């Protein structure tokens, strides 16, 4: 099993103070805490600042295309269910260009963990509006303010069939790592929407702002209550505060559980398929 040091690859090139550092460190801590062998861990990633995460982590990884990290991760898991598969993406990547894959991955409850670095802005392309930017948000691409209302990833996930739906905050590394650990342990699709301040381009949803509005779900909160979870998912901003923690959790067989041909991982099955019997049926 690896130590935190062994999980470190190179020095990240994110902006100093970027919320991504906390996410990377929390993920490393979860891998250590769960005693996962890095050789059995695959991180897939999309495009954007979040997409660079695999570069700084010493496990197997494949960096993919904008919005396509989820189907690639699904393919990895279908081929080898023995691997722990985690996906790293941003709000533009997952809730914008990749939102179709997001919904369908949750419907099928494939056993992967999706970490969304949600900074409500496109960072790597130097500050345009994102699907989670608040209405009226002024950016390079929306100088007059965003007209659309933001995507609500938590409500969308609950309704789309995700079986572990959590929100965490990059300003609280220990809490974040605990949420990621639970998400990886969870059998089925886990979403962790991580509030991650972009210190360079988002001057509205800053550390200072989040410190004021974020609150932890109380211990009496029951994540199995879907209606209550949907109500909690509506909370955003100064008035209500923003809840962090596990908002929704349910049990359902994973996609692979329902496919008998995947009982033994495909990569551990032989390549010999008896086609003689199949051809006999065409006679």
């Amino acid at each position, binding site marked *: 099993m690896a130590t935190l040091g062994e999980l470190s*690859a190179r020095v990240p090139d994110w902006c100093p103070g970027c919320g991504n550092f906390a996410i990377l460190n929390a993920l490393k801590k979860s891998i250590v805490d769960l005693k996962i062998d890095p050789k059995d861990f695959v991180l897939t990633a999309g495009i954007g600042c979040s997409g660079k995460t695999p570069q700084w982590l010493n496990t197997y990884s494949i960096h993919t295309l904008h919005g396509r990290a989820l*189907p*690639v991760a*699904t393919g*990895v898991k279908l081929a080898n269910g023995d691997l722990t598969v985690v996906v790293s993406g941003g709000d533009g990547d997952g809730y914008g260009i990749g939102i179709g894959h997001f919904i369908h991955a949750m419907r099928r409850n494939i056993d992967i963990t999706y970490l969304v670095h949600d900074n409500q802005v496109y960072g790597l392309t130097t500050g345009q509006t994102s699907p989670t930017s608040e209405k009226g948000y002024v950016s390079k691409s929306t100088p007059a303010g965003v007209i659309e209302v933001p995507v609500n990833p938590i409500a969308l996930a609950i309704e789309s069939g995700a079986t572990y739906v959590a929100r965490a905050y990059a300003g609280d590394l220990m809490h974040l790592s605990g949420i990621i650990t639970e998400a990886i342990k969870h059998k089925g699709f886990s979403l962790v929407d991580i509030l991650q301040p972009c210190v360079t381009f988002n001057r509205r949803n800053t550390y200072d702002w989040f410190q004021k509005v974020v609150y932890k779900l109380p211990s009496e909160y029951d994540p199995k209550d879907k209606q209550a979870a949907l109500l909690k998912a509506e909370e955003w901003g100064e008035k209500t505060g923003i809840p962090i923690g596990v908002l929704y959790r349910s049990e359902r067989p994973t996609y692979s559980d329902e496919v008998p041909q995947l009982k033994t991982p495909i*990569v551990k099955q032989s390549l010999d398929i008896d*086609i003689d019997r199949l051809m006999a049926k065409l006679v």
Partner: protein
Amino acid sequence: MAGISTGKTDLSIIIGGPAGYGIAQAGALFSKACTRSGYFVFVNNEYPSLIRGGHNTVRMRVQDTPSLGISDSLDIVLALDKNGVLEHLEELSERAIIVYDSDEVKEEDANKAKGHLLVPLPLITLAREVGGEKIMKNTVGLGALCAITGLGLNELNRLIKESFGEKKAEISELNIRAALLGYETALGKFSGLDGKPKFSLGKIDLPEKRMLVSGNEAIALGAMRAGCRLLCAYPMTPASAIMHYYAANEKEAGVVMKHVEDEISGITMAIGGAYAGARTMVSTSGGGFSLQTEGLGLAAITETPLVVIEVQRPGPATGLPTRTGQADLHFVINAHQDEFPRVVLAPGDANEAFALAFDAFNWAERFQIPAIVLSDKYLAESQFTEAPFSHKHLKIDRGLIVDSEWIEKNKPFRRYLASTENGVSPRVLPGTPGGIHREPSDEKDEFGNIDESPHARKLQVEKRARKFEAIRREIPAPNVYGKSEGAEVSFVGWGSTKGALIEAIGRLREKGVEACAIHFTHVWPFPDKAEGMLRAQKKLVLVEANSTAQLGKLIMQETGIRIKDKILRYDGRPLSAGDVFEGFSKISSKGGKI
């Protein structure tokens, strides 16, 4: 324009009517009855993109020698409605017989086929007479076909029993009675047949049983033989039957067919599976492949083996969803930005579809590249009569997948090692001790660390280019059919036009014209050996199912040879031997001789 037979038997039969009349089922039963009676049948379905109505046909060419494709003329028409007669008037051979449903087709319409033997049969009345529904009129018609062709009812009855099974014994019995009534009525006094079959499809004893297999099924079987246990696909005509075949045989073959949410998911999920170490595939048509081009580049830069099946249909956007064409050649060779190696294979018939689908996995894994099998609707949905594919000789080659022992000896592990002669680097699968590395979609150094330096970029570009050259050295020459030495004309084609080319050179020979066909199954990298072959020919004529002669342009680009004479068909219908024959007579200076 009667068809010229290469054997004794060459009979073309069409069943036509609107969608929803059970045309395809009737065709499937009759063609299988013929193959089981020892004949080679080539089956081609034509249908518009709708569920009810329109004009659907199943066209069966029954021969006692291996079938090469559709014929240009029809000998028997079974018309289930008016269009079943009217749509085919131009295609009737001199000996054509038109059997039509007199309950649905007016005499004045049938008379448009005057000069041919007309056989009116009240198919609906007969279906009801045995206690069946109107829909069973196709079975009555099949009985009539069995009478006219001399095939008899034995095989048909057996097939009806097989398809309904014991659980539906009643329906099976009803169909058998309907077929018998159709048979007897056709041979009855007033049918116009004088009580005798017009053809003699007697039973031929066979040394072995033969399959009736579509190009799509052949591709699926080739992929399965290659060990592909994960197909990720989204429905798109005319490729859908590949996913259907995989899905139907999931349990028996131990494979997974993942019906994905969209085409992009199809290709990227296949890439994920391949990265993890499975042999995976994605199947689609041109429109789906348009969406998948971004995934193609991901496979290329991460050097993940990937097999793509692209089944062409004509037209940009929706085009002609259920028709055929060969207009995606340049598209698949050039899809995605930048430059990277890929292999494009173009099978010409079911046997080649099986073999090349198998080979595609070896190409993909040996060179860690995307390998594309370029099929088309005509090949994909036509059915061929073939002995079960021989496959014992096929060898799976997974290329350079290394284990922890290898890694230990070759430390530090460089996933993108650039110094290899053929450009191929060691590949390691997740889960392997000691092999941890990164696979970015960015340009990178040999270890997989993102690296934008001119040095790293150059190293990786040149490494990928060396793969291309190594592949090129292995690409086989095009196949030659007929004798190229002394040929007055050499036809040049690729993919599904193979059968038409072979049949056409046979016909020309009968007319005293020595001809040969140079047929490309490996179109990219362009085979080195092709230039010499082409230069040695007296007269080259391109034959393609597109409007710009795409292979011709490719030949020009790669060899500098400009082929002026072209036979091109781009109306969405299959290119036949007749198209080649007639096309040549138009462009040949020896036109008079043919």
